[in-house]
């Protein structure tokens, strides 16, 4: 576990010093939220019904953008070899990358949610919404980290990432959007089945990614 934290610390330090993609992710999420407002031109009732969709599309896009870079950058710099030479197994490298990616997405959400609250006037700062955001971030980062590693050493990596992530993240999109919509409409209690489904999704795919990551990194 200490090794995992060392890897996480390394990623945070690199990001803090280089400021490579976190800033871009945040701005991208905000610009998506703003653009979607023009795309749909929502009235009050529509906002309750569709606002959550816009919010999660923004997270999904921003997450994809940032996650897509997370292993590609390592490969381009040649630091991926360094990582694989470390005396840690592939699963540990996955966990390190996964945790730092969760943190990046949560930071994006931490900026976007208050802005969303201000712009759309929806209760996006409710504890349940925040919990849903974190559960969604975990699932997104789990699959995203795995596919980022797949895409990193492939041709056409930018297009490969969404092609893999979008279909497989469908349960995540449906679950987070439905649950957040229910909370926005004041039926928070009905959202609990979705919490369970998403929690199960997170556990299954983070565990699976941990197991199969070995197949990806082995060169």
């Amino acid at each position, binding site marked *: 576990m200490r090794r995992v934290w060392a890897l996480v610390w390394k990623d945070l330090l690199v990001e803090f010093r280089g400021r490579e993609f976190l800033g871009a992710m945040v701005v991208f999420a905000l610009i998506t939220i703003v653009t979607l407002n023009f795309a749909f031109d929502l009235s009050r009732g529509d906002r309750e019904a569709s606002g959550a969709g816009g919010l999660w599309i923004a997270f999904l896009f921003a997450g994809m953008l940032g996650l897509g870079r997370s292993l590609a950058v390592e490969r381009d710099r040649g630091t991926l070899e360094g990582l694989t030479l470390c005396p840690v197994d592939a699963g540990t490298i996955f966990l390190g990358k996964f945790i730092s990616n969760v943190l990046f997405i949560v930071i994006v959400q931490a900026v976007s949610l208050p802005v969303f609250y201000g712009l759309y006037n929806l209760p996006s700062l409710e504890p349940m919404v925040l919990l849903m955001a974190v559960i969604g971030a975990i699932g997104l980062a789990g699959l995203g980290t795995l596919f980022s590693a*797949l895409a990193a*050493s492939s041709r056409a990596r930018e297009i490969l990432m969404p092609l*893999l992530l979008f*279909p497989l993240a*469908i*349960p995540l999109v*449906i679950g987070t959007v439905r649950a957040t919509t229910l909370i926005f409409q004041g039926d928070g209690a009905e959202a609990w089945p979705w919490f369970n489904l998403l929690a199960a999704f997170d556990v299954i*795919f983070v565990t699976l990614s941990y197991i*199969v990551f070995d197949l*990806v990194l082995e060169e």
Partner: protein
Amino acid sequence: MMQRNSTNRSDMLVMGLGLLTVAVLTLGIFMAFVYAPSDLAQGNAQRIFYVHVPMAWLAYLAMAVVFVGSVGYMWKRSARMDRLARSSAELGFLFTTLVLITGSLWGRPIWNAWWQWEARLTTTLILWFIFIGYFMVRAYAGDRERGARYAAVLGIIGAIDVPIIHQSVTWWRTLHPEPIVLDTGGPNLPDSMLATLLVCLAGFTLLYAYLMVQKTRIETVRDALAERELTALFAPESETLDRRPVAPVSRNVSGAAED
């Protein structure tokens, strides 16, 4: 000489499987068009089910085989397991495409719409995208061995995701205020229709098995060919390798695999 004999025997078996497939499918088509009564409510449009249901079953069966092949590849790293997975993926993609097309053809007269966002339909559509992702990962990976590993990752993740996708779409639909259109009672099917459906299911499953055998054979030859090209590339002095025709080698390989 022994090698030849066993190859011949396996060729005979494959041909027998092919003939059996043709026989059962012919019977199935006859039953679907002549023996089975036409549906009271849906008329003749209902007959597409005798193709549609087997296609759907094979789409998911093929994905299950991809999963088995992928897990097997992760476990043993055997080229055979990868061939199994990728052959099944290609057939699965074909059947998934066909189930979407036949479903839409049926939906147009019955629902008055090509498409409904219903759980089974939506899951099948996503399955179609997962198959595409599976091929793209393999194609973009650069080299064959890496492609096999990456495809195995997608084979495992994708297959496990399918039931979860189905579950989430089901809830999404039922928690939405919309009527459920698709209500084809399976158990209250008349015997003649059920018999037709079962024969068609058997026929198309045989077809899948037959195509799988042929497809894995082709892939075996293809692998052997790629192997020889590599050998020729890295050892240019052994030029005799290039001149031998490919076919005998492939026969040896497939024969050896079945011994």
